């Protein structure tokens, strides 16, 4: 059997020497995601009847599909989840580590289906800045949050939890995601 658990092509007959981890350049990934948000914003406002909700919908749906597939790949070696809190904790720890190389800094819940995830140093915001600063930067940075919202919602959906995810930021690079589990 193959010794490396994370391979790009998991064929059982591969010898350990042939198994290699294929990695993507981090800068390329960052640039691609930045351009994705910008392109969707730009092309959506030229459509008739389009407003900021259309952009939200597009980015969120993108993230939804990505989250679904990502979670399939990530949990294939894991035992079943005990309850919803376990699922959310998995998202805060493992999913966030894989996507952003760090964990969620703060998780709050009211034990009635509402979870608040707070990230004090959101990786995609580390270099975002404008000349005006403050509230204007936060407003311009909000579209970058909708894609991760979709990823969280997709991940939860594929693990059997229907939810609604919203995000907000008041001062970069801090941001909060709010998950509302459907009863």
């Amino acid at each position: 059997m193959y010794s490396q658990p994370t391979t790009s092509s998991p064929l059982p007959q591969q010898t350990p020497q042939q198994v290699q981890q294929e990695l993507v350049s981090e800068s390329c990934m960052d640039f691609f995601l930045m351009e994705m948000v910008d392109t969707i914003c730009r092309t959506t406002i030229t459509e008739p009847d389009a407003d900021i909700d259309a952009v939200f919908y597009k980015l969120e749906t993108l993230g939804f599909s990505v989250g679904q597939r990502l979670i399939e790949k990530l949990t294939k070696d894991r035992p079943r989840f005990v309850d919803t809190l376990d699922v959310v904790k998995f998202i805060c720890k493992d999913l966030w580590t894989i996507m952003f190389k760090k964990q969620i800094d703060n998780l709050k819940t009211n034990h009635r289906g509402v979870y608040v995830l707070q990230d004090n140093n959101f990786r995609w915001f580390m270099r975002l800045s404008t000349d005006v600063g403050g509230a204007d930067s936060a407003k311009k940075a909000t579209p970058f949050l909708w894609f991760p919202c979709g990823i969280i919602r997709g991940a939860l959906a594929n693990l059997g939890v229907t939810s609604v995810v919203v995000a907000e930021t008041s001062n970069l690079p801090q941001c909060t995601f709010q998950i509302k589990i459907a009863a």
Partner: protein
Amino acid sequence: MTIYNLYIFDRHCQCIYFQKWTHAPKGSASANTSQTGSRLGSRLSHSTTSSSEPMNTTQLSSHNQSIPEGALLTQQSGMAAGSMISMEEEAKLVYGVILSLRNFVRKLSSTSDHDGFISYRTSTYRLHYYETPTGLKFVLNTDPQTEGMKAVLKQIYVQLYVEFVVKNGLMRFDDTRWEISQGFLSQPQANEDTPHSTSHTSFTPAPPGNISNELFRLAVDRFVRSLSSFEQK
């Protein structure tokens, strides 16, 4: 040994960044102040008349809200005292000087590599120059006794410009988008009231040429002040 100011030009002959460090005269108790300015470089290409100084200063004052109270609203040039020319004129002059010197040195030098023009010195200041393969030109003015700053300029480019401008998702570079060339999107206007725009226009890109942002400005300021060549009088 001190550092006076820093210019950054892009390959479209526009000044996209300017920062200067003023020093208190001897005997004064006030600390050093650092004045920064952001340039709407597109104005250099859009200005039809050369005598547009009054327009420039008012537009500048509407943009530089972060300049501390008491500082001049009009950006005083770093040139000889008594000559008050606008930032735009000064940037054009500086660009003309470095461009002609660079071409001149390139024609004279025997080697074909691009390391021709590095710096020149006069009795009052020394100008250091660094050009990247993408056409970005970094110009640093220091006092005449400073040693070569090419490594410093290269560091500014690699560690600060690439980090805080290139990787900044909100910074837009020259508009060479395919849609514009095909005529699908109208050219973005150089609108002065971008910070006060509605949420709909918050997605329109900023006028090309303006790369000034908080993180970059602070980082450059901190970096320059930490250099051994930068001393407070």
